[in-house]
């Protein structure tokens, strides 16, 4: 039980993790993440990596849409830029993966800055439509540039760590999950700084933010840049994970997926991006296990598959109706419940 947290310094007040319980759980979670690859099968490891990549990208979009209030449907396009940069560098130059991922992030960031320019003039749905263009432009570039392998795309060698190819889900887990954790930590810290606070001020009221002395041009573009950097690195990880990149790998639908993830998870919270990405990736898979319990075997799969998709859709609607602040808010409520447990429940 916890009845309050005493803070005596500003540093303590701004700390990311303020209670001992939180820190203990963090250590437990860390230990579980380390142990997981040793007990899980290839399937669960694959899903863990996929979730991790989606978490990284959703967190990027959360910086832009959740924290800065700029709706974007270009996230998949930025991921594509990152993925193609990594694929091209890996297959032509064979540079180390860390450099490739960083360059993937930077190239996506430049793309993000360009796409972000209209955000100075338009907001909301109008901006969302403007960012859709990114998807079409990048698709055209990927399909027609000389070094992108045309519509067939590029196949790449696995990332290698001191000569060890990261070619199985088990091995690449140790690349994808730590990078994602690092990115999450970065994003969480961002909102303890002036830059992060400026983003929030812009989201809440951009004119007031300008009056407060926050240059909108710089900060809006910075938000676009950071968000697409996250997408670029996530795209790079995607490229190393699937090892085939084609222009059709990053469709507009994928951008909608990430937008849905942060809405379902809870916009404007780091945890929201994480929970949303986990929910959107894992629930369809977990529903398969639930449906596997129905006797009837393979014969029924064809009838049950559409039902499963409908249930997934209904779950999303259900969460939006009953908890518009997303899964993060549900999580917070559960935590609050346990703060006073067992005395008040």
């Amino acid at each position, binding site marked *: 039980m916890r009845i309050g947290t005493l803070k005596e310094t500003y540093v303590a007040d701004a700390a990311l993790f303020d209670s001992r319980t939180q820190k203990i759980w963090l250590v437990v979670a860390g230990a579980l993440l380390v142990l997981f690859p040793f*007990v*899980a*099968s*290839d*399937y*669960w490891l*694959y*899903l863990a990596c*996929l979730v991790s990549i989606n978490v990284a990208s959703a967190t990027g979009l959360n910086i832009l849409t959740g924290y800065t209030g700029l709706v974007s449907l270009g996230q998949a396009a930025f991921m594509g830029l990152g993925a193609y940069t990594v694929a091209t560098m890996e297959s032509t130059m064979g540079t180390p993966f860390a450099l490739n991922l960083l360059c993937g992030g930077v190239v996506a960031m430049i793309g993000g800055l360009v796409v972000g320019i209209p955000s100075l003039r338009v907001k909301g749905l109008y901006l969302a439509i403007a960012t859709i263009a990114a998807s079409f432009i990048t698709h055209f570039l990927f*399909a027609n540039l000389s070094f992108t392998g*045309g*519509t*067939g*795309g590029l*196949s790449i060698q*696995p990332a290698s760590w001191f000569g060890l190819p990261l*070619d*199985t*889900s088990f091995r690449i887990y140790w690349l994808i999950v730590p990078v994602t954790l690092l990115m999450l930590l970065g994003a969480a810290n961002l909102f303890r700084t002036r830059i992060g606070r400026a983003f929030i001020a812009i989201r809440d009221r951009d004119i007031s933010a300008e009056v407060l002395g926050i240059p909108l041009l710089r900060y809006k573009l910075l938000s676009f840049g950071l968000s697409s950097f996250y997408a670029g690195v996530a795209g790079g990880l995607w490229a190393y994970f*699937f*090892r*085939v990149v*084609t*222009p*059709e*790998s990053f469709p507009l639908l994928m951008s909608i997926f990430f937008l849905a993830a942060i809405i379902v998870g809870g916009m404007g919270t780091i945890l929201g991006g994480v929970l949303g990405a986990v929910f959107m990736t894992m629930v*369809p*898979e977990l529903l*398969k*296990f639930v449906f596997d319990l129905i006797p009837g075997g*393979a*014969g029924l*799969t*064809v009838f049950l*598959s*559409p039902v*499963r*998709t409908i249930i997934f859709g209904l779950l999303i609607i259900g969460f939006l109706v009953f908890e518009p602040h997303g899964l993060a808010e549900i999580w917070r409520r559960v935590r609050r419940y346990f703060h006073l*447990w*067992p005395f008040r*429940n």
Partner: protein
Amino acid sequence: MQKSLTSQRRRSLMLAAAGTALASPLTALAQAGGEDIVIGGSIPMTGVFAFAGIGINAGMQDYVKIINDAGGIKGRKLRYVPEDTGYKVDVSVAAFKKITSQNKVNLYYGDSTGFSKTINPELDRNGNILMAGASFATELNDPKKYPNQFLVGPDYTEMFGILLKHIAKEKPGAKVAFVYSDSEFGRDPIEASEAAAKKLGLNVVVKLMTPPGSVDVSTEVIKLRRAAPDYTIFHGYVLAPIPEFITQGKQQGMKSKWMGTFWTMDSSTVMKMGPDGDGFMGVMPYRYYYDTEKAPMLDKIRQMRPEYQSTAYIQGFLAAMLFTESAKRCLDAGKELTGKNLKTALNSIKDFDTGGLIGVPITIKGNSIPVGRVYRADMKAQKMVAASDWIAL
């Protein structure tokens, strides 16, 4: 106190339940399939490709049932384990991982070119699986790059080859137009087929690439009319925008014959073209469900399913048949069911009778079965009728 105790008990129960729930999938994964020969499948039963996936699923299921009812392969039963993919590569790979984690899989059916390419390194590493799929991509027809995969028919370039061969025979020196979508699927055979057409003495007068999902094709139709081809081959579409091309082309007085490739050529798809689609031709590697020529396997299918079955069904059915034949040959030779052995067994198939599903005996030398026939739509009879003999490349 009482309350806290109950809560504690409840908590421990919940923890235990959560533990079991988490552990059960993991333990299930440890169970390997027994003596069954497992055919796994990433099948698109929802999403844009569901129209084909449902047919493929039914075809595989039916053939597995036929074999199992007859006692299996050397006493070993076949087990078909499909998972829905929604035609998304990441979900498809997840399905592969799920099925292979829970079963000892020897044979696998993939749903897209993207999946076939993505899973290839995994197949090479695994070494125990032979895979076929819904893709006819030319790139996959390379036994060196894709040693554990094969195509259940001709690749897209070979489909064009069959059509071009037919055209060269019907009208030597004819003018041909290629209309294709700006996608991996659409662009696949174009370059190689232009060269093939030249070799056959045909003249490719225009190549029109349409943006994916385009509906308004009036400007393309004008370009096509100016080129005045004798034959127009569509590729990279299922149906739209082919009917728009044909209707507008005919309205503008075009005399071209219209042709398509496999995914357009299902009877139900072509019939949707309406009266303007009369005479629409295309390449089909299999017989149609309602073909009247002698085909004992088609008789069996018609017995099992009295209503029309799509060409995707026949594709799934034939894939299962070739899987089974490869496994049977492996077991007959006393070899283990590994990807390499299964592929060698597949490649030993020579003059194999498919029970009439393909009109001629087939031989599989590499990764494809380069045989097909040109069919023509008869809108009055609402059927596809043969317009050529079986053409082998």
